[in-house]
């Protein structure tokens, strides 16, 4: 009996010992994560030529309490890759894969002020008595931004003040340039973006056409302003009529400007506004 009881005790200890690790709760220290992981966009295009730097803020949520002092946040740049899969022609199974870095990724010092720069670090904080931080990225207006949009993907790193939050919310991409970009209300091409509902699919050709017709900056501030007063329908009708008038003008047809297309590529699709 003693022999068996000894084994039984060991077995019981074993069963008691093997427990799945408990989930982390929101009560073991301060953590930080991104507010959302949708790519954020920024453009220098509306700023005067003399402006060579600007700051973009990435929103971050903290977990745990607030503090009465500024708490520093650290991030690092991570490279982004395109993956190509090689499949067996017969079984269609993946037999090989290769990664290639995405083009036009930002370079520290040339496109943005490095995160190790002391001046930048001084403002890379969650302010005292705040639960949500605005993380600054100082962008530099390099001339190559006029032709291409560059990407900067950042990942939060743990430091003395904050450990990491949810795994899926640690990285975010910022796309910036010195040409027309989407703005927040038009960040995707589906019904969740209010400007898509008003104006349809985004393209730089359409964006430039809207600026030309309405003679004003077409950005988040403009869209919010017209939404508050309920003028979206007015502008949809106005732009649709202006596009029809432009596309049927014989001078525009002759010079090739009509029909207005999505990009400067002559084979891209003509733009249209929703009915």
């Amino acid at each position: 009996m003693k022999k068996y009881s000894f084994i039984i005790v060991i077995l019981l200890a074993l069963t008691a010992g093997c427990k799945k690790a408990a989930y982390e709760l929101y009560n073991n220290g301060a953590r930080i994560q991104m507010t959302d992981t949708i790519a954020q966009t920024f453009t220098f295009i509306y700023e005067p030529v003399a402006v060579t730097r600007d700051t973009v803020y990435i929103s971050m949520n903290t977990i745990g309490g607030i503090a009465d002092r500024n708490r520093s946040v650290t991030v690092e740049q991570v490279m982004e890759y395109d993956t190509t899969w090689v499949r067996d022609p017969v079984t269609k199974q993946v037999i090989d894969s290769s990664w290639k870095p995405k083009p036009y990724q930002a370079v520290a010092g040339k496109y943005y002020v490095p995160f190790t720069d002391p001046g930048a670090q001084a403002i890379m904080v969650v302010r005292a008595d705040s639960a949500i931080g605005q993380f600054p990225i100082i962008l530099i207006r390099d001339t190559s931004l006029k032709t291409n949009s560059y990407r900067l993907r950042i990942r939060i790193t743990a430091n003395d003040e904050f450990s990491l939050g949810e795994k899926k919310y640690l990285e975010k991409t910022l796309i910036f340039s010195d040409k027309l970009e989407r703005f927040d209300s038009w960040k995707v091409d589906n019904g969740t973006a209010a400007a898509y509902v008003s104006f349809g699919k985004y393209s730089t050709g359409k964006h430039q056409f809207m600026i030309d017709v309405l003679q004003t900056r077409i950005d988040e501030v403009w869209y919010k302003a017209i939404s508050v007063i309920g003028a979206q329908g007015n502008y949809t009708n106005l732009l649709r009529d202006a596009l029809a008038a432009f596309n049927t003008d014989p001078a525009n047809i002759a010079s090739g400007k009509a029909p207005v297309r999505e990009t400067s590529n002559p084979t891209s699709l003509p733009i249209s506004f929703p009915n």
Partner: protein
Amino acid sequence: MNKLYILAAGLLALLAAACNKDDSTAAGPIAQLKVTGLKDTFTVIAHQDFLTSTPTVENENDYDYYWTLFSTEFNAATGATLIKPDTLARTKDLNYEVVQDPGAYILVFNAKEKSTGVVKQVNMVANITTLTLNGWYLVKDNGGKTDMDFIYPTENPVNRIDNWIAYYNGGKSLNGNAVSAVFAPSFRTSITSQKYFPVLIVASQNDAAIYRIDNGAMQLNFDNMFFTKPAVRRPQSVFQPANTTALGFINDGRAYNMTKGALFANLPVAYNGATYGNLSSITASAALDLGFDNTRKSVFVFNGISYLELKVLVSNGVNNGLGKLQNVNGNLQWMTGYTGSSSQALVLFRNPQDTGYLYKVDGRYGQLFYGTPFTTGGKIVTIADTLKPQHGLMNASAIGGNYDVDLIYYAVGSSIYKMDVTTTTESLQYTLPAGETVTAIQHIRYPETAPTVNSIAIATYNAGHYKVYLHPLSGTQTLLLTQPSFQGDGRVSRVIYMKNGVGSRVY
């Protein structure tokens, strides 16, 4: 053992008796308020009348009194805060000079029992109105300026405000002759506001403005009532759709739509392959609003900030009347629409040979929005008349409809005629005194259900003066010459009757 049983039984009985509901009342009985002399409804004019009441309360000295007034304009669903009333008096008797904005209010008589602190309340209705919410508005022009004469019912012989727009707006009327005017309910100044008030929107040849009726204040004018102000100032028409959250406007051949609270938004000039850039001033409001494009010569439907074309749901090549309203060989002469239970429209075309085509159109929502189901024999055009060029209607200077019966009234020179829409038979009603030309014929019918005012109004003009004749309609719908009800300076083009801040539609 017996003792045990007896003890158990005794205890059980005790248990049963112990659990009793407590029916006692804590304090003394609550007093019943006995009050007499309170009216159910008060109707008072702001800045003029007093809300007065001297109720009789049994055991008067047992209570403290106060009177409160609650507005009924709040959104119960989203109102997160308590609605605060105005306290009008802290005495039993009420004598309060009314200064609130017009509207329906709830007047509450509160009696707080001094001993218990319990408040008993009696609710009453208080309709606060202003002078300008009841009466006749005559839209006129005089000397190249558009204004309105307002005539209101009182015992005092001087009971009109001439040039009402100028009276309330620093002496400024609208420039240009009168073009159009409608009464619009439920106007508001922003899309989130819960405060609604009725307005009159008046358009002249060069200008247009929206006036709040209860105080005459201009809310918007041509310069600020559009999201995108038109380049050319040429108002043609303003109309109030059956959907009271919207308002329609036509200027320089193009249409605009306002969702009340916002501004007038552009309607497209080209839509779904059809053009709408040369719109007629003539519109008709049935369940939806009908318009006419002078280039395509077709009747269409206004649909918010876009358009609908008239259609049939099943087409087998047979003309169900739709062909009469589209690609017309001629011009639109006149249209009128009846909203509400009637939901139909009358459309009159004139072809190049001066032959007329009068159609009665099924103006119900389903027929206009979805199309007429041909398979069930539905027709857009329910009556179709051809009128010879000599017919009086083709020589009429003013035309008006009749909401209840298929009749049209029109003026040829100084003679007033009535025409049956089904038979096109004309009958002379009477002839006006020499020199008077007819400037407007309208069916004034208010309210829509069980009208208390049901007259044909005929406005005439002679050497700088107008007269408005009212002909109450009876069974035969015949008009007899009467004395004019109103007279004044200028030329009247539209008559709007208003009661309690609700105005009549134009038929």
